[in-house]
């Protein structure tokens, strides 16, 4: 787990204003005074010195009482996401980046790190199963003053919600198509029986 030095931006080294019961333990493990503090909307926190995240690297940092995945894509864009795979809770920081997606080391599910959308097996699963695949929660991230800053995940959630809506529509269409096909097959069988 990455442990950023305490020489980060001064405004982020304050103690959490709303500590949880296990706050001290979390702060101790993360060596960050604010590591247990819940993320507030539009509030940015310094997560890691930017130089500690080269292109193609995945790393895990403690944040808001939980660990968060930080990655830098091939074009240099930093991204932040939940470190826990939505499929079976594997640690995504042990995975790799393939074409802008994080590859879960457990079952090799792929999640797009820009949108959080499950890319594989969503693109090959039957529509009803694809619609059940959870997406990877993302956090907003920016690079400023030599640090990577992370904030709440409202923006990413909207993108995922849009995709989920599209999935549902697709599954509904597929179900309707299948139902139509089943009806047609039943009609044919009925015709054969009648004719037969």
């Amino acid at each position, binding site marked *: 787990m990455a442990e950023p030095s305490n020489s980060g931006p001064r405004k982020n080294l304050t103690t959490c204003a709303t500590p949880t019961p296990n706050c001290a333990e979390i702060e101790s493990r993360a060596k960050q005074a604010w590591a247990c503090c819940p993320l507030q909307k539009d509030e940015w926190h310094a997560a890691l010195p930017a130089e500690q995240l080269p292109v193609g690297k995945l790393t895990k940092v403690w944040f808001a009482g939980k660990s968060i995945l930080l990655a830098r894509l091939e074009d240099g864009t930093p991204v932040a996401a939940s470190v826990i795979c939505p499929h079976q809770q594997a640690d995504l920081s042990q995975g*790799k980046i*393939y074409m802008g997606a994080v*590859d879960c*080391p*457990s*079952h*090799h*599910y792929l999640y797009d790190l820009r949108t959080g959308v499950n890319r*594989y*097996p969503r*693109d*090959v*699963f*039957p*529509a009803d*199963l694809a619609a059940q695949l959870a997406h990877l929660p993302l956090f907003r991230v920016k690079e400023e003053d030599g640090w990577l800053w992370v904030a709440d995940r409202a923006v990413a959630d909207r993108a995922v919600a849009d995709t989920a809506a599209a999935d549902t529509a*697709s599954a509904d*269409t*597929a179900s309707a*198509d*299948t139902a*139509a*096909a*089943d009806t*047609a*097959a039943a009609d044919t069988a009925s015709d054969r029986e009648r004719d037969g």
Partner: protein
Amino acid sequence: MGKVAQEMVTKSGINLKTLTDKLIAAAGAEFTTFYYYTILRVAAIGMEGEGLKEIIEDARIEDRNHFEALFPRIYELGGELPRDIRKFADLAGCPDAYLPDSLKGGKSPTGSSLKDLLTVLVEAERCAVRCYTDLCQFTHGKDPRTYDICAAILNEEIEHEAWFSEYLGEGPSGHFRRGKPGTSPYVGRFMTADHG
């Protein structure tokens, strides 16, 4: 089980449990893929589908060969296959390669059922390539026997991916067909059973 063989692997810095878990997941993926490819091969019919049959059969039998080559190493390292095949399937390191909706009368995501079928196949192979790349990197310079087995499998998975990718018009592979399905030119030397 080989006590010294295990000790050498442990002394090289590899966690045996982690390694055997990865190998069991890989073996599970080969076993389930063999099963699903059977269904996919059966569905490859019609003017265009018939041309795909032999190549799916080749990949199908070679995936079974990969399972055959992997499982002795799991036991050598002190691991074991799950007693329950249902658990084994759940542990598989890659998602199930389901028959696409369009081959059951449903909607086609690509507009062509044959292209849907090829997409399932190529993505399954890509998952396998990621799986064995991970295993090769995990064992490189530490466990030469597991590395050799996984590198041999990786060679065949890369060829499988190229075959299906070529069918999808993604570019030439430069490969030529095997002599007969299931030849396993790389993995054959690790198999004790007759492999065709």
